[in-house]
């Protein structure tokens, strides 16, 4: 009886040792891949940082208004953030390639999905960045035009333009990465519609006098001439 137990135990230990001996090289491969991946990712980070500094990416990001958002969220600079992102994506990619070598059933499919997802994530980030750039440019243009036209609420107009574009850009980015597509679409529709309705009501109730002034200025010249002031000619 005792001999049987010892024999079974020995067999189990031998199988475990065989299994471990079979797995050990794969674990070493994972570790080597992780190490090589770290070196490659680090090099990619250094090279990318050099390129971004060369093209003054931080300035571009500042112009886009992205830097201000990052500062408010206590995040590092846009260059630093992008470098870190590339570093982690590259390193994670190498680690996952190594893990693939372990031959765990079902994991390979998930890893393939992850690699297929990466381009979409990158496109979504690009949409976000250029969307922010466009939102900042157009909201500033609206603000300047409103101030120079003596519009009563220039900042409201500017913020509205910015909000509309950011909502639009966010919905595009979410759609690109495939996160809750239907929900985002419905949410975008509701938010955009509500915003437009709100603006229409606000303009209708608050802009009555403005519209009256505009129409009088545009079409009521004859009447206005009586107490007319001289216009200042800059040139």
């Amino acid at each position: 009886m005792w001999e049987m137990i010892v024999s079974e135990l020995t067999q189990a230990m031998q199988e475990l040792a065989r299994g471990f001996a079979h797995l050990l090289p794969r674990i070493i491969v994972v570790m080597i891949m992780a190490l090589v991946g770290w070196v490659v990712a680090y090099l990619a980070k250094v090279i990318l940082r050099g390129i971004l500094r060369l093209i003054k990416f931080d300035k571009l990001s500042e112009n886009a208004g992205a830097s201000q958002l990052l500062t408010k969220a206590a995040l590092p600079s846009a260059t630093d953030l992008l470098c870190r992102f590339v570093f982690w994506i590259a390193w994670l990619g190498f680690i996952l390639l190594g893990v693939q070598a372990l031959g765990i059933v079902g994991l390979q499919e998930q890893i393939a999905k992850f690699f297929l997802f990466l381009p979409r994530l990158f496109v979504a980030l690009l949409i976000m960045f250029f969307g922010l750039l466009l939102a900042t440019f157009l909201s500033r243009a609206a603000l300047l035009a409103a101030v120079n036209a003596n519009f009563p609420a220039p900042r409201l107009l500017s913020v509205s333009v910015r909000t509309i574009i950011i909502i639009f850009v966010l919905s595009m980015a979410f759609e690109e990465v495939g996160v809750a597509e239907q929900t985002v679409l419905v949410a975008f529709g509701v938010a955009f519609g509500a915003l437009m309705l709100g603006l229409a009501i606000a303009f209708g109730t608050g802009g009555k006098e403005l519209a009256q002034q505009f129409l009088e200025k545009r079409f009521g010249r004859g009447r206005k001439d009586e107490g007319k002031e001289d216009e200042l000619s800059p040139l």
Partner: protein
Amino acid sequence: MAEESFLTDDFLGQLISVGEVDILVGVPTHNNTKTIGSIIETIQAGILTFFPRERAAIINADGGSRDGTPQLVVGAAIGDAQRSSKLYALRTLRSISTQYASSPASGTALRTILAAAELLRAKACAVISPESTQMTTDWLAALLRPVYSETSDLVLPTYSRHRFDGILLTNLLYPMTRAVYGLRIREPYALEFAFSGRLGSQFLAQNAWHEETARAGSEMQFTLAAIAGGYRICQSFLGTKQHVERHSADLVQAMRQTVGALFFSLEPNFSLWSTKAGSQPIPTTGAEQEFTLEPVRINRKQLREMFSTGVAELESVFQSILSPSTLAELQRIAGLEETSFCYSAELWVKTVYEFAAAYHKSVISRDHIIQALAPLFRGRAFTFLTENHNGSAANVEDNVEALCLEFERMKPYLLKIWNGRE
């Protein structure tokens, strides 16, 4: 002859039929039926009076008029001018009109006139605004004679103006052009001027025509190109310049055409202006500038309000353009009462120079930088109007001169910030 492809075949055919000319007068138009008849008649009379022996042509570059302006130009018979002036031309005088585009663009209009002048090998050319209703025949002589006698390459006008007319000229364009380039040119942005064929060809050949920004302020750029090229520039007093309401309609557009062109010119000409100090007068025929004092009613309150609103609303924009000390000072004066409000010459010069440096560094869109200057200019305009409210012509001139000297005194500040911190 590189410009042949730019001109229409019909226009080229008409130019070829004219042959070579000595004098060319260009008139850019767009819906000017009210004034163009008398302008063309005056030009014809001026040519008959002062250049009867010279071959001359009038070129109308039209920006898509729908009121028959080009037909009026072409139909203006020389006989009418001959009868009214009782003078007869010894050579032919042709009037040609071409439509350069379906909408007006001052740069393209000037380019058309320059191309025509080059093709016709004109010795002296003048450009006349179709809105100059006070124009007399003497204007042509005053503008064209220095060029035709080969003593000048560019003749710019000086006028008798109302003291508050051309306030952008007196408070920014004249003082800054003078301080930067060292020449006392009273009207760097001129709608009436004359130039030699040599200068016209040089300006035509430059590549700036391909840039949208360069198209806008071509008259200003023409003056700046003449300065940068070392051409001989002089001024001629023309007479009264009446206030044209259309120019006052859009301050931002006026600033784009003039201030934008001036800031833009600083970059390629840095080596020229960075070494100059002080300023020199240029040869001037007649008065350098006259101010008239008729009472006018201007809404100064609105100017100050728009300044204050601009400073408050555009704080985020100004943070990218101005130094913290300048912005803080602007915010301080924006909160002052109307009676104690003063946008001092020193602060104004500092503001303008910081805007010029920001434009050079493109800290934000260059067009946005120019637009952001407009509300601040309104504040300066308010102070200028207040300072000269009851002033005599001499007082106004003294104030303008003081501002010019301030621009000259602070030029080292512009140099300091030009290549300073990004």
